C-alpha cells in the first residue's frame, strides 16, 4: 500500500534529530513559561528549578504537573503567555463539571495546529480530492475547527455540517458525495443505525474513510463501524488544553497513533504514584508543549490511559506511536477494588454476534458491597421468543464480562432506544454510589 506522508522531513526524521529538537524546544518552552506565566515562575522557583540550566528531558521530572484544575483556577486567561492582542482564537471547554477551561492561540499556534491536523488526516488517507463531512460540533469545542482548518490545509473540500440533525447528515452525505466522515465513534454508530433504518445501502455511498476521535473506543467498535459503513476507520487523538485534535493519529496500518513529537513531549506516568514509567508500559499520558506561544503547558496530566510504542512503524514514519486510549483515569471505575473501563465491556458486547454497543454501566452500593449492572439494549438479532434462549443470551453476556473484568455483574436487558443517545460523547456510566 502506497501511503502519502504530509511532512516527510519531520515525520520520518532520524531519532537523534527528534531528540535534539525536543531538547532545544523544551529548554525554550520552560524559559518562555518562566518569563511569561506567573504560575510556572512560582512553581519553578519553589522547586529550585532554573530553566536556563535545563539540560535533558529527565530534568523535567523535578517540576510539578499541570492539571485541569490549574486551568480552572486561572480562568480565563491567567496561564496565557502572550497579551490578549496577540491572540487570534480562543476556545473553551463546556464547563459542565465546574469553571470552564479556556485556551488561546497566536497566529503561529494556529498555523502549527493546521499543519499537525493536515499531517494526521493525510496519514488517515485524506487527500485534496476528498470531500469531508465534519460532524464534530463547531463552536467552542476544538474538534470542529481543528479538523476544519487542517482539512482545508490539505486542500480537501470541507462541508462544515457540525453535529446533530442526523437525517440532514445522511442527505448531505448522499447528495454531496462525502468521501470522509469526521465524528465521534459513537455518533458514527448512531448515524449508521439511522442509515440502516432509512434502508440506505452503504455500498452505494462514496464514503471511504472515517476519522473518529474525541472519546475512547475499542478495536471491535472499529470493525463494526468499518463493516456498517463499508469504510476504513482510523483513530486520532488530541485535547484542547494541549492544542486540540492533531496531537496524534493513526496511519492506514492502524497500529497505533503517531505522536507529533516535534511539537509535544510525551511521558507516561503511574497515575497513583505519579512516577514516570519505563517505555512500553501502560499508564497516564503526560504532555508538555514544545512550540506553543499563547498557552505553553508543562507536564499536563491528560487522564488518558495509553502506552507508547517505540518500535518503528512499517509506514516509514519514525515518530513514536501511542496505543488507542483504553480509558480515562476519571472514567475508570473502581468496583470492589477492581479497575473497570467501559471500553472493556464494549469489547465483550461486540464480540457477541448481533449485539449493538448500546449499553450503560450502572454502579451502586448495597450495604458495604459495590454492585455493577450492565444494561444492554435488545435488538432484532438479540431477541428470541423462547425464554430459555433469552436466558442463555444473558448468561453468555454475563459470563464473558465476568471473565474479562473478574467481577460479578448483573445483566439487564432493556428495550431498544431506552438508553440515552448522544450526538457528542456517549454517556456510558451511571455511578450511584455516594462519593
Amino acid at each position, binding site marked *: 500500500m502506497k501511503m502519502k506522508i504530509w511532512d516527510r522531513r519531520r515525520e520520518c526524521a532520524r531519532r537523534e534529530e527528534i531528540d535534539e529538537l525536543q531538547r532545544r524546544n523544551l529548554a525554550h518552552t520552560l524559559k518562555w513559561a518562566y518569563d511569561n506565566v506567573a504560575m510556572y515562575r512560582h512553581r519553578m522557583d519553589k522547586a529550585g528549578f532554573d530553566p536556563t540550566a535545563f539540560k535533558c528531558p529527565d530534568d523535567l521530572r523535578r517540576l510539578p504537573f499541570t492539571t485541569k484544575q490549574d486551568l480552572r483556577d486561572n480562568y480565563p486567561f491567567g496561564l496565557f503567555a502572550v497579551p490578549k492582542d496577540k491572540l487570534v482564537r480562543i476556545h473553551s471547554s463546556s464547563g459542565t463539571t465546574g469553571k470552564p477551561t479556556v485556551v488561546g492561540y497566536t497566529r503561529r499556534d494556529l498555523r502549527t495546529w493546521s499543519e499537525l491536523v493536515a499531517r494526521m488526516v493525510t496519514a488517515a488517507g485524506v487527500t485534496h480530492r476528498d470531500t469531508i463531512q465534519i460532524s464534530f460540533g463547531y463552536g467552542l469545542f476544538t474538534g470542529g475547527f481543528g479538523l476544519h482548518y487542517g482539512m482545508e490545509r490539505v486542500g480537501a473540500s470541507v462541508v462544515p455540517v457540525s453535529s446533530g440533525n442526523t437525517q440532514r447528515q445522511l442527505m448531505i452525505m448522499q447528495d454531496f458525495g462525502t468521501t470522509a466522515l469526521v465524528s465521534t465513534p459513537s455518533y458514527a454508530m448512531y448515524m449508521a443505525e439511522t442509515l440502516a433504518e432509512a434502508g440506505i445501502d452503504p455500498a452505494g455511498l462514496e464514503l471511504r474513510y472515517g476519522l473518529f476521535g474525541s472519546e475512547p473506543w475499542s478495536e471491535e467498535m472499529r470493525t463494526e463501524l468499518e463493516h456498517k459503513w463499508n469504510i476504513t476507520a482510523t483513530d486520532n487523538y488530541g485535547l484542547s488544553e494541549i492544542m486540540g485534535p492533531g496531537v496524534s493519529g493513526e496511519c492506514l496500518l492502524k497500529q497505533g497513533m503517531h505522536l507529533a513529537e516535534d511539537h509535544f513531549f510525551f511521558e507516561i506516568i503511574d497515575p497513583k504514584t505519579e512516577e514516570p514509567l519505563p517505555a512500553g508500559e501502560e499508564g497516564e499520558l503526560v504532555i508538555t508543549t514544545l512550540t506553543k506561544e499563547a498557552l505553553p503547558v508543562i507536564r499536563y496530566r491528560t487522564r488518558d490511559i495509553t502506552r507508547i510504542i517505540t518500535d518503528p512503524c512499517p509506514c516509514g514514519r519514525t515518530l513514536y506511536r501511542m496505543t488507542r486510549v483504553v480509558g480515562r483515569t476519571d472514567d475508570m471505575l473502581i468496583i470492589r477494588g477492581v479497575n473497570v473501563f467501559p471500553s472493556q465491556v464494549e469489547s465483550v458486547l461486540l464480540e457477541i454476534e448481533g449485539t449493538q454497543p448500546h449499553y450503560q454501566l450502572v454502579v451502586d452500593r448495597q450495604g458495604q458491597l459495590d454492585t455493577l449492572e450492565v444494561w444492554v439494549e435488545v435488538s*432484532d438479532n438479540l431477541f428470541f421468543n423462547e425464554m430459555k434462549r433469552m436466558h442463555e443470551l444473558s448468561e453468555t453476556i454475563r459470563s464473558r464480562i465476568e471473565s474479562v473484568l473478574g467481577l460479578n455483574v448483573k445483566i*439487564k436487558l432493556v*428495550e431498544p432506544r431506552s438508553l440515552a443517545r448522544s450526538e457528542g460523547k456517549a454517556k456510558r456510566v451511571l455511578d450511584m454510589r455516594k462519593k
Partner: protein
Amino acid sequence: MHTRELSVFVENKAGRLAVLTKLLGQAGINIRGFSVADMSDYGIVRLIVDKPDEAAALLRDRSFIVRESNLICIRVPDQPGGLSSILNMLSASDINVEYMYAIVDTLIVFNVENPDQAESLLLESGVKVVSGPEVYSL
C-alpha cells in the same frame, strides 16, 4: 394453516403493557389470545391478533422488538383427559412443545418444534386443528 404469533420484548416497568395494548387498540387490532412469560427485568408478551402483519409493522415502527412465529392452534376436547390425549400424541412422535397457552374458548396454541409434522399428525388422528384466519375471526 398455521396461526401467527407475535412475541414482543417488554421491559418490566409500569405502563409498558398498557402502552402496547393501547397501540393495538387504537389501530383497530383485536387481540385473540395472549400469554406473558416474565423474568425479573423483562417479559416476552406473546400475542395472537386478527391482523398480524399490521400489528408487527406498527410495533416495530414504535421501536418494539418483535419476533414472529408460526404456531398450531388446536381445539382440545373439552373433557377430562382432553389435553393429555393431545400431548401424548405429540410426545409419541417426539415432537417437543416449546410452550403453549389457551386462547379463547378451549383453543390452545402450541409452539412445537415442527408445526407441519405436528399438524398433519393431529389431523390424521382426528383432532380439530384451527386455521389462522379462523382464529383471527373467532
